[in-house]
């Protein structure tokens, strides 16, 4: 172990290694190459060895097998993570900005009394310190942050790095925790899967997505008319789902679906990182927003600065004519 190592927390949900893990490994490799350290992947689960082949981009794969890590609960995961970080003393700990990451990273930072940066998009050495480019304010602002203390905990936005295809040494180490994990106040009960019956937006070739700019539920008719004309379906960003205007099965983004349609038309969606995470790989993205600085224009292929309530009727008519 070395003070220049970079530790990646592998994310496993429903017995599947999360895509973000390979992205974290890519970020870690870039940093470790610059600092002369190793990339260490940490697997916290009940049977971690089977995930090791997929983590070959790491130099070392530390596996903690424990029955209390079979299903997610913050306390045993943080306790295990804390012990390993304390033992390894890495330069940085990279954790995905995911549902689990938003628990683990701040709790770990609080327990170790070390710095934490959220919204990480890029990480590089800056002398003895680290320099992190972080996104915040819904993707409308970036910050260059210097972190001198070690270990630095960085939450990395999913999609910020291309998944690693490199092959490291991939040596697996099974570890026993010195302190046994204890039962937690928060206990996993069961998975609740999306209700059957609604259409699967991940299978649609054309999606018309609505955000706050749609303003009220009645205006969904405009989006539905456009989607119908194109033979597609309507989906939405989180604020529309939170209002109960569309079911959760139509949500695109971090907590919703990841879609890759042939065409994604974003209506009144500003483009927070949580939403972009779910649609950025669409073949063609057309975005309409009144704010010319909306981050959605950074991922769109074509952009229009306009009020969706004005443009959509004109677009639907134009499509009917063509």
């Amino acid at each position: 172990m070395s003070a220049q190592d970079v530790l990646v927390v592998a994310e496993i949900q429903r017995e599947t290694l999360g895509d973000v893990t390979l992205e974290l490994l890519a970020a870690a490799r870039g940093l470790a190459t610059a600092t002369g350290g190793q990339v260490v992947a940490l697997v916290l689960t009940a049977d971690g060895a089977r995930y090791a082949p997929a983590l070959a981009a790491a130099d070392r794969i530390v596996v903690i097998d424990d029955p209390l890590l079979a299903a997610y609960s913050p306390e045993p995961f943080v306790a295990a993570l804390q012990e390993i970080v304390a033992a390894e003393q890495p330069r940085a700990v990279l954790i995905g900005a995911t549902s689990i990451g938003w628990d683990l990273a701040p709790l770990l930072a609080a327990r170790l009394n070390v710095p934490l940066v959220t919204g990480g998009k890029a990480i590089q050495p800056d002398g003895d310190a680290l320099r992190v480019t972080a996104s915040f304010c819904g993707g409308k602002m970036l910050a260059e942050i210097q972190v001198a203390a070690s270990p630095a905990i960085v939450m990395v936005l999913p999609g910020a790095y291309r998944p690693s295809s490199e092959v490291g040494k991939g040596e697996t180490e099974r570890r026993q925790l010195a302190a046994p994990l204890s039962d937690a106040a928060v206990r996993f009960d069961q998975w609740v899967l999306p209700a059957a019956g609604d259409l699967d937006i991940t299978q649609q070739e054309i999606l018309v997505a609505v955000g706050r700019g749609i303003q009220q539920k009645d205006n969904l008719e405009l989006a539905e008319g456009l989607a119908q004309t194109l033979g597609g379906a309507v989906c939405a960003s989180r604020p529309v789902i939170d209002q109960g205007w569309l079911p959760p099965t139509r949500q695109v983004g971090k907590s919703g679906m990841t879609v890759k349609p042939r065409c994604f038309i974003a209506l009144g969606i500003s483009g927070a990182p949580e939403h972009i995470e779910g649609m950025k790989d669409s073949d063609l993205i057309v975005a309409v927003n009144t704010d010319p600085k909306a981050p959605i224009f950074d991922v769109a292929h074509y952009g229009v600065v306009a009020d969706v309530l004005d443009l959509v009727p004109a677009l639907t008519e134009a499509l009917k004519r063509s």
Partner: protein
Amino acid sequence: MKITVVVRQIPDLIEPLEIDSSGTAFDLGSASFIVNESDDHALEQAILLKEAGGATVSVVALDFGDIDNTLYTAAAKGADRIIKIALADETPPPPRAAAALYAKAIQPLSPDLVLIGVQAHDELDGGLSPFLAAALGLPYVGVICGVKPGAEQGTISVCKEFPGAVMARLNVKLPVVLGIVGAEQPPRYVPVARVRAAMKTTQFEEQEAATAAVGPAVSICRLYPPASGSHAEMLAGSEDEVAARIAEILAQKGLVK
């Protein structure tokens, strides 16, 4: 059940945020403020629990931005106690230091359940909700979108969001801090008349300013907006012209039936 809710004011992103002359902080003097959306959901969830089975709801906030209006609105929605914490500085402290201020105000309330928005868009170096749990010495779980009384006394059942519209149902022993991402229903609207009535009857419990230790700090070297429009080809013209151009593009890609 004793529930405490934390509500925060954050800059409204409808208007562009100005960066001050240092280049490392916002010029908040030119910003307008709104309630943090997920905190609003946390309050709604607390009121729903109160309505479902009886609870007292205390709302705690730092005195910043347009917080009085937010607090009167909370009272109009059904909050029983309102606690406002004075700030020693003109701007709110970073999350870890803010957590210490909130914890000092919340500890005497001995809450069974603390609800707070899981995230605020202006957080760069941590999330207030888990830091608050750490400061209170309570368990924490976040990204929660639904809270119901549990099967056993002293427990609740919550749903934690995961990608793909999948949720994990978790059984949670009280006391606990939950980072709320969404309530079981959208935050309720309260008529202005009820807010005005609350202004006449609600007494804030005001706490003196205190300086909290900042903790391990990160150094912001520069703030800047991302290069906008760096990728999209922007289409300009009248609505009909732009609509015709989009239709043409879609047709060229074979996307028009």
